[in-house]
């Protein structure tokens, strides 16, 4: 499956197409995606693919096949259910991400990781 994904609608479509595949338990799927997603959308893509790994005979979605540009938006960050020092760390990372450059890219990745870790805690 090769897709360009640029938002929740594309994500919905991807997941719907995967779920619609027949005989999933005996099907090997290789997913290759690119596009631009928010932190929440990227986390949703990651979680959605991981959730379906058990469903398919094999679901391969290596990172080298994921050319996704993550652009955290305000909603991403405000929606993070963190308080206290975690919120302070989130805000500092957001400032560094907005500054751009290599450090900004790292901060963006760190924010994405924060979103994922918070999501893990809430599961």
């Amino acid at each position: 499956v090769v897709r360009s994904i640029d938002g929740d609608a594309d994500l919905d479509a991807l997941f719907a197409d995967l779920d619609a595949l027949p005989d999933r338990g005996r099907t090997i799927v290789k997913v290759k995606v690119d596009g631009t997603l928010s932190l929440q959308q990227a986390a949703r893509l990651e979680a959605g693919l991981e959730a379906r790994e058990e469903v398919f005979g094999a679901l391969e979605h290596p990172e080298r096949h994921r050319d996704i540009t993550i652009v955290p938006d305000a909603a991403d960050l405000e929606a993070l259910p963190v308080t206290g020092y975690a919120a302070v760390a989130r805000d500092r990372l957001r400032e560094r991400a907005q500054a751009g450059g290599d450090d900004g890219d790292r901060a963006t990745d760190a924010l994405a990781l924060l979103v994922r870790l918070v999501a893990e805690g809430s599961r």
Partner: protein
Amino acid sequence: MRLLRVALTDVRGVDRCEVRFEPDGVTVVEAPNESGKTTLLDAVDVLLEMKDSSNAQRVKDLQPADRDVPSTIEVELSCGATHLTCRKTFNKQRGTVLTIHAPTPEVVKGTEAHDRLRTILEADVDLALYRALRFAQGRDLDAVALGDSAVLAARLDATAGGTGSGDDGGLIERAEREYRRWFTATGRPGKDLAALDGSLADVQADRNRLADDLAALERHVEELTRVERELPHLAQVRDQELAPGLEQARGQADRVNELRGVVATRRAERDHAALELTATRDARARREARASEVAELDDTVAALEAGLAPRRGRLDELVGRRTADGAELTAAAARLADAREALDRSQLLADLVGAELERRGLQRRHERVVEVVEAARDAERALAGIRLDDTRMRAIRAASEDLRVASATLATGAPTVTLRAHRPLRLDVDGSPAELGTDQPEVWTVADRLALSIPEVVDVQVEAGTSSDELVRAVEEAERRLAQACHEADVPDLLTAERVLEQRDRHRDVVERRDAELARELDGRTVDELAADLRDAEDRVAALRERLTEVTELPDAATARAAVDAASEAVRGADDHHAGLRAAFDELSATVEEERTAVVMAETQLAGRREERDRLAARLADERAERPDTDLAAAVTAAEDTETQAAERLAAAERELADLDPDAVELRVTNLAAQLEDLHQRIGELGQLRAVLHERLRQGGEAGLGEALTQAEDRLERVRADHRRAHARAAAAALLWEELTTARDEAYRAYRAPLRERIAAKARLLLGGSVEVELGDDLAIVGRTRDGVALTWEQLSAGAREQLAILAALSAAELAGSDGVPFVLDDALGYTDPDRLERIGALLGRTTDAQVIVLTCVADRFRHVGGARTVRLLEAAR
């Protein structure tokens, strides 16, 4: 959570008891040791944690030691909005009953009751804080670690403004786990990153190796093409050019070798003929040389005989001349002896004159010495008789001066008579006549009296008064002293004294000049030595006179010296003449000896040459008898012909060899052979290389290098992408971990402040003065500063650590407030002195927001806790 009531039945050593606790404030439970205080709270823990069905050891331990009975624990407590009573029976007749009184009354039993109780506790009770606030007997004196208390953290967080630790739902642990997935504890890349790095390096190496192999394969194809093209060309050169050329050259080389053998034979024949010719010529030359040598010796003998005769004549002449010169030399020697004798006599006479003069001088000196010594002796005698010395002379002169002055004073102090005549007249003065002119008056002094008489005119008598008598006595006294001084000097008056003094000085001069004169006359000798010298001089004069008896009158010294000089001159003249004759005689003698030696040598040489000539002439005659000179000449001619013919045959053979150019033939053979060998080797090597290249191309084709390289490059691209993403994820994990821990540490520092302040305030009340405490990350006390002196926890005394730990626990319990748990002191403060006990009691007594339960066997230890409810366990057990 608040413990409200605990009831035990048959639990350990407690048969039955029930204790009620104040929900806020202090409850002191008094009981002796081993009467069940600790059992009371251990039983609460078992009820809260263990199911009634449990067979755990701590449950079994509830049963009394001597009875097989069920153990029942009943606890009433409140937590949050819930008020409940739970009753559990263990070991026998097991059962659980949970009675919820509020908010909604309910009774639950069995396992469900236990589960419900756990649910309520986990939801509303900070169990970590509950464990932290238990001060059991014998507890380690570690600081109270409150860092695990969620309630305390939330309260501190709220107090600090809501940025503190909060409950992050395990976020920090997950972030750390993610970080540790990529990095070690010390921050170095972990095994996953290292494995990725290694994997990337391996794949890159594989790809590079395959690319190198493929490039090598392509080079092999090019190489094989070149080899296939070169091999036939080299075979053609070998077969059509080099091999025939080498065969032809080797034929020429064989001919050259044959001719070299011929030349060698001819050269040997020529060399033999040349040797024969040389030997024959040498024999002829030796014969001619011998004959020439005999002839030369004949000439030499004749020349020597001719030169010897005049030499012998000259020798005879020289011998005659030397005989005549010897007689003349003898006469000159006699004259020289006579002149030397005359010189000796004139010298003796001069010596006699000198000795006589010396004797006379010594005699004069000796006489003068005797004279001086005697004069000095007379002067010394005269000096001994003179009493006058310089002192006495000065006394005489002084007395004489005094007399002169007294007389003058008498003259000026006495009355005077002055007469001025109007005409010349004659008169008598004290009986002496005197004349008086008119030009000037005449004055007379009157020492005593004065009588003036002008004949026939008048007589005048003048007398001095009383003052003149004293002056007269002074003059008399001066005269007496002068007479005394002269008497002492043994002289009559001053004038005589002056003469005697002059005589004394002359005598002294004689004595003083004696030594100088003696020194001059003796000239460093003593008088005896001078006398001895005089005797020696006299002896020498006598001895010389005995040798010169014919001399009757001595000449003067100059005459004697002149005679000596004349005799010396005569000796020098005779000596010079004799020396000249001696030198000429010696020179002539040397010439005679040289000539005699030359004659002897010439005679010897002549004899030697004659003998040699005779010996060689005899040998030449023998040789000619054996082989005449004509035979030798014929043999030389025959040898010359033979040598000429051999040389001509050798030259012909060498010319034939040279025409073949043997060096060029050898060079060509060698060069062609080497070329052929090189070509053989090259063809062999190319053949092997072709086989190797065929094999490598075959192997390369089988290995599918091109496809393998494509796959390796794909794999490298994938691994690179994985590597890049993994590092990006690792960097994100590191950054998130860094930001979270930084923010957490900052929050910790902020929200620890309320607890620290509360502990410090209590510590100030306990210890007095300025007290600050420092909390670690786990909210445990790590140090205390009192009045500027900072100590770490470990440096504090056991008592201080226990007191600070209690204050920290009490502060935590107060901060937790209604969400908190009981603060239990079980036989604590054993290290605390009475004064501190009173202060701690006061602090505990102020507690209103927390439940404090004190278990003690020493009731007096907590009597200072104001407002505490005291329960005596023995009474409660009744």
